[in-house]
C-alpha cells in the first residue's frame, strides 16, 4: 500500500469533520504514514479462512421489556446545549440560508 498524500489527509480530515491547520496536515501526513507502515506487518498473515472478532464475550441478543420508564428530563437533556429556545436546541439554518 502506498502512503497517504496531502490531499488524502485533507479528505480524511473532511470525513472526520476535523478542521486542521496547514501545519497540522503536514505533520499528520508524516505521522500517519509512519503508523501505516507498522500496519503492513498484518499483510504477512494469511487470514482468508479466519472469521473476524468484533467482541469477545459471546453474548447474544440481550433484550429487555419494551416499557416506558423515567429518563432524563427535558431540562436536564437541554442543560448543556450551547443555545436553546423553549424545548429546542438552536442550530444554524441548514436549508435556505440565514
Amino acid at each position, binding site marked *: 500500500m502506498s502512503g497517504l498524500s496531502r490531499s488524502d*489527509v485533507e479528505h480524511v480530515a473532511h470525513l*472526520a469533520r476535523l478542521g486542521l491547520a496547514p501545519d497540522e496536515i503536514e505533520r499528520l501526513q508524516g505521522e500517519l504514514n509512519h503508523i501505516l507502515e507498522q*500496519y503492513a506487518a498484518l499483510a504477512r498473515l494469511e487470514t482468508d479462512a479466519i472469521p473476524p472478532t468484533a467482541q469477545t464475550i459471546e453474548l447474544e441478543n440481550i433484550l429487555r421489556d419494551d416499557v416506558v420508564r423515567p429518563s432524563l428530563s427535558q431540562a*436536564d437533556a437541554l442543560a*448543556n*446545549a450551547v443555545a436553546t429556545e423553549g424545548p429546542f436546541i438552536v*442550530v*444554524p439554518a441548514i436549508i435556505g440560508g440565514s
Partner: protein
Amino acid sequence: MAGAGQGADLTSLTAHDMGIGLRAGRFSSRELVSAHLDVAERQNQALNAWLAIDWEGALAQAYAADARLAAARADGSGRPRAVGHHPLLGVPVALKDLISVRGGPTTAGSRILEGYLAPYDAHITERLRDAGAVILGKTNMDEFAMGSSTEHSAYGPTANPWALDRVPGGSSGGSAAAVAASHAPLALGTDTGGSIRQPAALCGIVGMKPTYGRVSRYGIVAFASSLDQVGPFARDVRDAAMLLHAVAGRDERDATSAPVAVPDGLLALPDDDAAATILRGKRIALPREYFVAGMETGVEARVREAVAALESAGARVEEVSLPHTEYGLATYYIVAPAEASANLARYDGIRYGRHVAADPPDVLANYLRTRGEGFGREVKRRIMLGTYALSAGYYDAYYLKAQKVRTLIKGDFDAVWSAGFDAIVAPTSPSVAWPFGAKLSDPVAMYLSDACTLPVNMAGLPGLSIPCGLSDGLPVGLQFIGGPWQELELLRLARGYEAITATADWRGARPTSFAAADDSAVPSPAERVRR
C-alpha cells in the same frame, strides 16, 4: 498526637483497615476523608493528579456514611462486615475524569468537554453510592484515555510520585498517582489497551482490568467500545478486590455487561499465612514473546525474580508461545482508533461541550472549528487513523483484517487455557516510568509501551498488575492474565505473590518525592516540562 500526624496515619492505611477502623468507631469517615482531601489539595500543585477535588460533596457523603456507621454500631451490628453494609462504607475513592457523577464536571481530559456537567450518574457511581464509598473527586488522564503517559491531558501532565520529573503512565495516570501518593486508598480507571495496568506498574501499585463485560460502561465516556473496561487501583490486592466487588455486575443499561455472578470471595481473600499456600501446584504460563526487544534489563530481571519466587512457592511455571503477540500493536492501533473515530463523532458542539462558531456560522464550518480546536493532537491523530481505516476502499484491508487477526490473538490465549494453565504471568510494561517528553515526539514509541498489555484487551481477558520490585529506584510491575471471568482466581494468585514477598526489602519502599510534593513552591508538572 497532633492532627497532622493523625492525618498522615489515616492516609497510609489500606482500605480494608480503614473499613475496620470506621466500623469499630476508631475514627470517623469525616476525619478519614478530610485527611485525604488535605493531602490531595496540598500536593496537587506538584502532582496534578486531580482535575477536580470535591470538598463539599465528599464531606456530605462522609457525614452520611458516619450516620450509617453509627446506626450499625447502635444496633450492635457494627462489627467488621456488618450485615447489609459494604466494607467500602465511609472509605474514600477517586474517579478517573471520564466517569459521570451527576451535576459535576466530566472532562475526559479534553477541552471539548470543558464546562460540561454530567446530567446523570454512571452505573458504577451509583454502585459506589449504594456501598457508601465517598467520592473525593476526579483524576487526570490522557485526553479521551488516548495515551500511555497522561501527557496528552488538555489540563497538563501528571507527575509520578516516585520521581516528579517522570510520567505516571497512562491513560489513568491521575488515578494511579493519587493512590500511590496516598491521596486516596482506592481509585477507578479504565483500561482499553493497558490504561490501568501500565500506570499501576509505573506508580508501584495494584491495578486490574476485569474481563470485558464484567463492569458496566454506562455513564463512562467511550473510547473504543469493544475494548474499554473499568477497573480498580489500590495499594494492595485485597483492596483492589474489594473495589471490584463494589462496582462489578450486570447492568441493563449496558447490553455488553454480562449476567455473570460476582463472587463474594472477592471480599474474603486470605491473610498472609494462608495466602502463601495458594500458589502451590498452580500451573502458570510464561509467554516468551512478552520479553520484547527493547525491554529494559532491570524490568526483565525483576520479572524473572518474581517468576522464581512463584516457583519456590510451589507454582509450576512453564514457558509457552503466544505466536501472534507481535501483531497485537498493529491490530490494536486499527481497531481502537476505528471505534474511537465513531464514538467521538458525537462531539458536535451542539448538544453539549465546547462550541466554536465559524464566521459566518454554518453547520459544517462550526463542526470543523469546534472539533479542530476542541480535540488535542493525539485525539486528532487517532480520529484520522480510525476514519481512514474505516473509509471506503480501505475497510477490508485494515479494519476487517485487524478483526481477523484479533481472532488469532484470542486463539493464542484460548490455547493456553485449553492446555490447563491457571494463569499467564508476564511483564506489565517493558520499561519503568520515563522522563516527561521522552516519547512524545514519536507516537509509535509511545504505543510500544503498551505491547504487553493490549493483547489482553483484544482478547477481552482479565489482567492485573502488581509491584514486583524496583529498577533504578522506580517500580516494576508483574502482570497476571487469566481466562474469562477468572478475576477471583487472578486476585488470589496475586495475593499469594504478595504474601510470599511481604517481607522483601523493596516492599517497604515508598515514593520518595513526598517531601518535595508537599512544598507549595514546587513547580507543577507542566512547568517542569517547559524547563
